[in-house]
């Protein structure tokens, strides 16, 4: 091999990965740089840069009286929604892995909440929960559980506790399809001869599930879990459409709060973004560790 061909071949890979790297630099890394820079700038509400702000944006952010409630609420939001989604999806995946008449139709139907716009789903739920004539309230009234319309009891989205619970229900509803499909794919990759061997050895259904299905499902489970954590953490349309974070900021998470700050205080909003970014990065690190572990397993 001549020297010139050697040089050409060592540059050849760069030619292939170069465009992808340039794209990543442009659409991923550059915005991150801008975001961090913005967090240290003083910017007027209409986007005029008035100079550097030092750590002032972060100070204002941590002085927001509502911030700590919002952080705690975000953690609760992520944990409850993801846990409920994963548990329900485990059962659903098991169900859809069985052979039953109409399975094809049922599998298609499961896609609906995923395929429908999340914003649309949220608006439908908001209307269904209307304190005066929402269909859920009308139903509860008809079966005698709700005495009167236009009361605190019928105004689910009016008080923070019930509003947050209902938004979690919607978040679980729209998250289930993806998790179920990821787990279903995992279930189908488990070789059937292992189950046959377990049967020959006389293992019961629960024992088979616990000692064979669950461990072999782990890689799919971990991937679905972490992608869900990121999705749910970043979830904006459900909260925005159903309560706009209100009353006050009492149903906001860090994602909606960041957006609300943006209207009046761009720098402070960027500081909130930096904080959000750091939180997401931690989850991404966990994800990378989990997938690296998976490769070792194989």
């Amino acid at each position, binding site marked *: 091999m001549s020297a010139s061909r050697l040089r050409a071949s060592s540059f050849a890979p760069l030619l292939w990965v170069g465009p992808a790297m340039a794209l990543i630099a442009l659409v991923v890394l550059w915005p991150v740089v801008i975001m961090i820079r913005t967090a240290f700038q003083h910017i007027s*509400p209409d986007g005029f840069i008035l100079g550097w702000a030092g750590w002032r944006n972060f100070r204002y952010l941590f002085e927001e009286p509502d911030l700590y409630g919002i952080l705690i609420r975000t953690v609760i939001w992520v944990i409850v929604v993801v846990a409920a989604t994963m548990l329900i999806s485990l059962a659903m995946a098991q169900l859809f892995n069985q052979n039953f008449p109409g399975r094809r139709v049922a599998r298609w139907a499961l896609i609906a909440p995923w395929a429908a716009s999340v914003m649309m789903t949220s608006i439908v739920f908001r209307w269904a929960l209307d304190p005066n004539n929402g269909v859920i309230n009308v139903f509860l009234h008809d079966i005698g559980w709700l005495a009167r319309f*236009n009361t605190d009891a019928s105004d689910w*989205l009016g008080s923070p506790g019930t509003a947050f619970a209902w938004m979690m229900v919607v978040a679980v509803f729209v998250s289930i399809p993806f998790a179920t499909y990821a787990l279903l794919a995992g279930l189908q990759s488990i070789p059937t001869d292992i189950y046959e061997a377990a049967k020959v050895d006389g293992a019961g259904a629960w024992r088979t599930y616990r000692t064979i299905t669950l461990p072999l499902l782990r890689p799919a489970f971990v991937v679905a879990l972490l992608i869900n954590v990121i999705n749910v953490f970043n979830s904006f349309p459900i909260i925005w459409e159903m309560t706009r*974070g209100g009353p006050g900021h009492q149903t906001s998470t860090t994602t909606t709060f960041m957006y609300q700050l943006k209207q009046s205080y761009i720098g402070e909003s960027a500081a909130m973004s930096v904080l959000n970014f750091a939180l997401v990065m931690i989850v991404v690190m966990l994800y990378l560790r989990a997938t690296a572990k998976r490769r070792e397993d194989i």
Partner: protein
Amino acid sequence: MRIACRSFAVAGIMAAAALGLLTTAASATTLNLVVADYGTGPKDTSQIYWQKIADDFHAVNPSITVKVQTINWNDFDTKVQTMVQNRQYPDITEGDYFSNYAQEGLLYKVSDVFTDPSNLMPVFKDLGSYNGVQYGLPFTTSARALFYNKAIFAEAGITNPPKTWEEIQTDAAKIEAKGKIGFGLPLGPEEAQAETLLWFLGNGGAYQDGGKWVIDSPQNVQTLQFMTQLVKAGDTEPNPGTKNRTDLFNEFAQGQIGMMNGEVALLPMITAANVLKPGDLGTTGIAGRTGPIDKTLGVCDFVAAFKTDGTKQVAIKKFLDFAFQDKYQLDFVHMYLELPGTTSAAEALAKTDATLAPFVKALPNAVQYPNDPVWAQVKTQIQQIIGTAIGPDPKPVLTTIQQTALKGS
């Protein structure tokens, strides 16, 4: 013939846009008009109103095309602000006007883009001004009044509409006992700043007094304490801090609410719902703590012209002179039952329309929102958190808002 020309032009523009080559040609100008939607659905969207003006205008001035973009009122401020933040300026907006855009030098002076500024309603001149120079053209106005449902009042055995807060509470309780909402109190994000101010005025309070912010004044705290016990007693809809004006207007139109502070724009919704019988609707002065308030809140929506690259001033002036003609002003009045923004159209209206004449006459006494640049942030915060002042202690919430006002933009 003209239609053929226009479709060629449209095809040309689309082709240019497809190639990513859309630049201002030497002969043709495109004006981007961004307007708030006063309609309630596709049938009465403001797109129809503006598109007609744009088409009429284009017929007279073939070299200028006006592109109309209509935005839902709930999102209008945010979307226009996002356009400004992203430097994608509209050429003309119609909706809320903010003096901070003038402060930042983004807007044309009214005298630069409108031939006869003296015809714009003088009472709203200050509101559309920054540092003594007028930047906003009053386009449409409205005055507030207490709306009540006479049928519900009769059913509850109430003979006269309430004049004081105490009467509001007694009457609302009677209506509540009949299974309807007594008083509709929209403190949700849509327009909480208006409802709040109407109550403040009832107790001699305000947002500003002589140019000083007085949001957390003792009167205002007292006002919110009264509102809190009104809510606690169940005389309003539940959780007013999460209820928006349009939703409550709709419920009023459906005959579910006994009374609420409203404006003329509510009338078309009542007609559309077709639930209230003719004569069921009553309007009266807004009740205060000890008697009806002598001033009402006058709200004005403005047209503002952005400088963008500074090349479109002549075209903008032509268009605004055209769009502010009395006939279009009155079209708007009839479409949405708002009031006009020009003196000549108001005079024409007062002569011909007996229902609207009292509202027109009330306009010169109208109280207005502060025209301080920080008002944009104060307003946003009132919309978001004033509902939480309905609670054991309103003072901290009002203080938070007061601090936002003092912090400046």
